């Protein structure tokens, strides 16, 4: 009797502990890297460029409407402005971060950015299709114009892709147009 009570009590205890642990811990699907925010070699701010200065995303990410990758701009693109703009925003003090950029350009040495958004190798994603279909960059990348240091805002899982594709098709069909966002496996897996 004594033994059984102890066993039962400990089982309940373990179950409770497990429940508490599960409800407080972060539970996520495998492959969900949301929140990932590595330190970058240059403290480049999307908030300053895309937010305050209202630069169009494709001003720098020129490949986004043309190909599979949005592309990281070559240093020569940065230097078009930063030959002149060398100070911290709204200040007369030279920016050490821009100095790093200028130095790398002078040395002909690529900057080793830390990649944030990565899909698995068996998933094929084409930026051009999404950009040309009018999907806003923020839909997948979050409110990038508010980020000083970029982090992965969304899980970027297959569920997320499919939800958006199905919602898009639903809206299209409801407005009398044919579905356009593919949901075939081979649209992304080949």
């Amino acid at each position, binding site marked *: 009797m004594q033994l059984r009570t102890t066993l039962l009590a400990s089982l309940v205890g373990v179950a409770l502990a497990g429940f508490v642990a599960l409800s407080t811990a*972060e539970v*996520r699907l*495998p*492959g969900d*890297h949301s929140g*990932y925010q*590595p330190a970058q070699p240059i403290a480049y701010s999307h908030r300053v460029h895309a937010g305050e200065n209202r630069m169009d995303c494709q001003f720098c990410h*020129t*490949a986004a*409407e*043309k*190909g*599979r*990758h949005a*592309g*990281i*701009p*070559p*240093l*020569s*693109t940065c230097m078009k402005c930063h030959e002149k703009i060398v100070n911290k925003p709204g200040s007369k003090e030279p920016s050490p971060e821009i100095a790093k950029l200028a130095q*790398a*350009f002078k040395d*002909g*040495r*690529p*900057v*080793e*950015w*830390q*990649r944030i958004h*990565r899909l*698995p*190798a*068996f*998933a*094929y994603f*084409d930026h*051009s*299709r999404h950009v*040309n*279909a009018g999907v806003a960059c923020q839909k997948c990348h979050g409110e990038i114009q508010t980020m000083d240091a970029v982090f992965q805002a969304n899980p970027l899982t297959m569920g997320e892709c499919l939800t958006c594709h199905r919602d898009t098709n639903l809206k299209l069909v409801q407005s009398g147009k*044919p579905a356009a966002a593919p949901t*075939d*496996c*081979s*649209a992304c*897996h*080949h």
Partner: protein
Amino acid sequence: MRIWKSLGHKRRDVQATKAEFDEELPVGEAVRQLSRRDFFRWSGVGFAVGLASGCDSKKAHKALALVQGRDGFTPGTDLWFATTCAGCSAGCGALAKSRDGRVIKLEGNPEHPVGRGALCAVGQAQLRDLYDGERLKGPRLGAKDADWAALDADLVARFKAAKSLRVLSRTITSPTLRKAVDGFLKNLPGARLVEYDTLSASALAAAYQRTHGARLVPDYRFEKADFILAVEADFLGTWINPAGFGRAYASRRTPDGKGDGQSMSRHVQVESGLSLTGSNADTRIRVAPSEAVGFLEHLAAAVEHGSPLRILDPKLAAKVAGLAAELREHAGRCLVVCGLNDLHAQVFAARLNQALGNEGVTVELARPSLQRQGDDGALHGLLQDLAAGRVDAFVVLDANPAFEVPGFAAAAAKVPLRLGLLRHDDETAALCTHLAPDHHALETWRDSEAVAGVWSLHQPLLEPLFGTRDAAESFAAWSGAPLPAQEQVKALWRSQVFPTIGGLDFDAFWHDAVQRGFADVGTKATAPAYKEDRAKTQAEWSARPAPKAAAHELLLYTKAGNLDGRHAHNPWLQELPDPITKITWDNYAQLSPGTAEAMKLKQGDVVRLRAPGLPDLVLPVAIQPGLHGRTVAVALGYGRARAGRHGTHVGGDAFPWVGGGELRSYQGLALEVSPTPQHMELACTQDHHLMEGREPVREMAYAAYAKDPASARPPEPHGGMGSLYNPHPKGKHQWAMVIDLSKCSGCSACVISCQAENNLPVVGKDEVRRKREMHWMRLDRYYTGSEEEPGVVHQPMLCQQCGNAPCENVCPVIATVHSEEGLNQQVYNRCVGTRYCANNCPYKVRRFNWFEYDRSDPVENLALNPDVTVRSRGVMEKCSFCIQRIQRAKADAKNEGREVKDGEFQTACQQSCPGMAILFGDLQDPASEISQALKDPKRYLVLGELGVLPAVSYLTKIRNAEIPSEGAAHGGHHA
């Protein structure tokens, strides 16, 4: 049984072998040694660690951007560059797909006059050749790595001291390289260039010297020939320009002339083995290897109404009369080609073409081929000079004489200076004191003139991977006038090509030439006229001893993939099944079924071939229907002693058996065949998938078809109960394919093209024996008729993308599902490897990854197509209809706000096919070519009676000959 695919199948004595999936999935030793208890213990730990670390690691990945942006460069998109294939000397025009600065695919250049848009298996495999991590990586002096300056300094001093230097090369088809070599030789008194070809056409050139007073190799126009007679010439496989010839030939192999009033050509092959070309002939005449020359003499005499000097086997003599009548009937519209390296045979062939009025029509003498210009006599002289110590330095340029030329290695070892401009650490490299490795042809500027007046350009498609140097640059440096390869090519084109094209601005011309990949300057030369001294030939021929018939006579040939062994290091080509025998990774002694039976030999029994004065050749037997009873056919190019990790010691070396002297000879040698107690299992794919009594190929006689095309229509299938399931919803496109069996020659270009496009792994000989080859596109070869004189039908077999697919409804994890566009999608990341789908596939086209195949070499991995997932162990895969190309075309069309155009993109197999046998397109577009092709009465479905509704259909093979005992088409079922 009318259609059969192997002797065992015909004789109904197929031995029960293990089925593809009899074996369990092999598990690594480390896992096997764990006890069950340990397994769970460690799994628990692993699970806990996994939880703690949040399921998957956040390994940091760098993203590097360019420093300086480049116009026209968009990361992740394709750029196409025109270049020239250097897989053999044919110099077919190629288009190279470049992604982010590296080549990922080669395709034929449709505008190019040589390849005419075709690119053969060897050409397709040049991609793997470029990214071969075992290439020579830099200059060597003695046995040590050196730098170029040190090598040059050392060499220049030695060249000055050399009194009689020889440059030994395969025929140089590059005018720029030839000029560089000439410039180098000019400064060195007593120095000479010797060119040779492993597959020599020396007799062909010598024959035209005799008959027309000009040493030349003609170019041939198969598209203009109504009747083709080929004697021992494998012009679709390995002879001179197989891809270009293949395209020209296939254009006349359709019974439905496309409104140009041209009828289907008729092709007769006279041969002792069964070549790829012979397998396509409408009629084959079997001769013994030693009889072919006599046959041609008889034929020439019969056509010219003369009387032959030699007595021929009466059975063959009877066939000559019929053939002569056919040739005369097609005078001026026929073609005789001969692949024998025998002066008299070639003289008879030249006489035939002349007498029949084929010159200037099908035989082009004014614009001859510039391939295979090598002179066997000069090579023979070099060997004598070497043996006598009259040569004190030699330079080998892009050749492997230590392997290909019997006696070279022994004679050359005495020469003090031995320099190699090579690409691989091969037998010749081992012999050299100095190595100046050449770039790969895709890494450098070069040109090629394979047919007189067609100048073709190579342009570099990536920075050289290793510390090599262009051969023309090397010669220029040693001549004291160093000049980059690009400048050399440009200078020669400025002086030789630009003036004939005309125009004011060389830069504009050059830009255009680089973009197109070639310039056709034509020729002002006139064809030499016939002026043979017949008495001389007659006297020689009478004095020539008649060949003695031997019980066994040798036939040396080359395989379409491996050629003369120069591609032995390339595993794609080693694993390519031979188009006829379907054997991979080996050479063997082919015997006819009758001969093998008489000697009580079975497939794989090892025999010893003996001939006086030659090293014994020990090889397994491959029993080959269609061979002449006296023929022992052995492929050259195997048994390499130094060919890297893939090619070394594969098969046996038959080069010592090539006859030397003034003309190298490849056939007719009498030899002894004696059995040995050994047996070896050949890695043959032909028995892997059995037909179970069904007949997947249909054939029909041209005469019957021409009379009533509708009679080709196959009977309605008797099954076809339909599906229990609702029909699949149809999207905007329905992709389908039609394959014309009359145009497919079995050349296997599609197999390698698919391998390159879809990242197919190489599995090796042992795994092929276990039926685990990974080719998505395979070529099934069927025989019809008797063992002695079989007809052959080649059938490309790939996933049929069934509309009612047996694979789909057995998958427990829904990893293979139907798409709206009619495709059976295979989702690798979902597949758990039950293999149910492959077991349920009636076409046996699914491939299972038994292992994590080797992807450890970062250089080799550069050949991977970034649009196609590299599959991992335990995953099923199969043909996807090149889904990545479909998706790309759709995305491009949508981005440009238009519809996908018919023919806008091609599948990899379709693009490479020299015969243009494969048609692919969208059935939802009623105007598309494929929608039209579906109405063809010749169309049938393989295993259509199963009701699986394949999206791939075939067109009945039409033979321009009587088909024994059958008037109408046979086998197959209508859709």
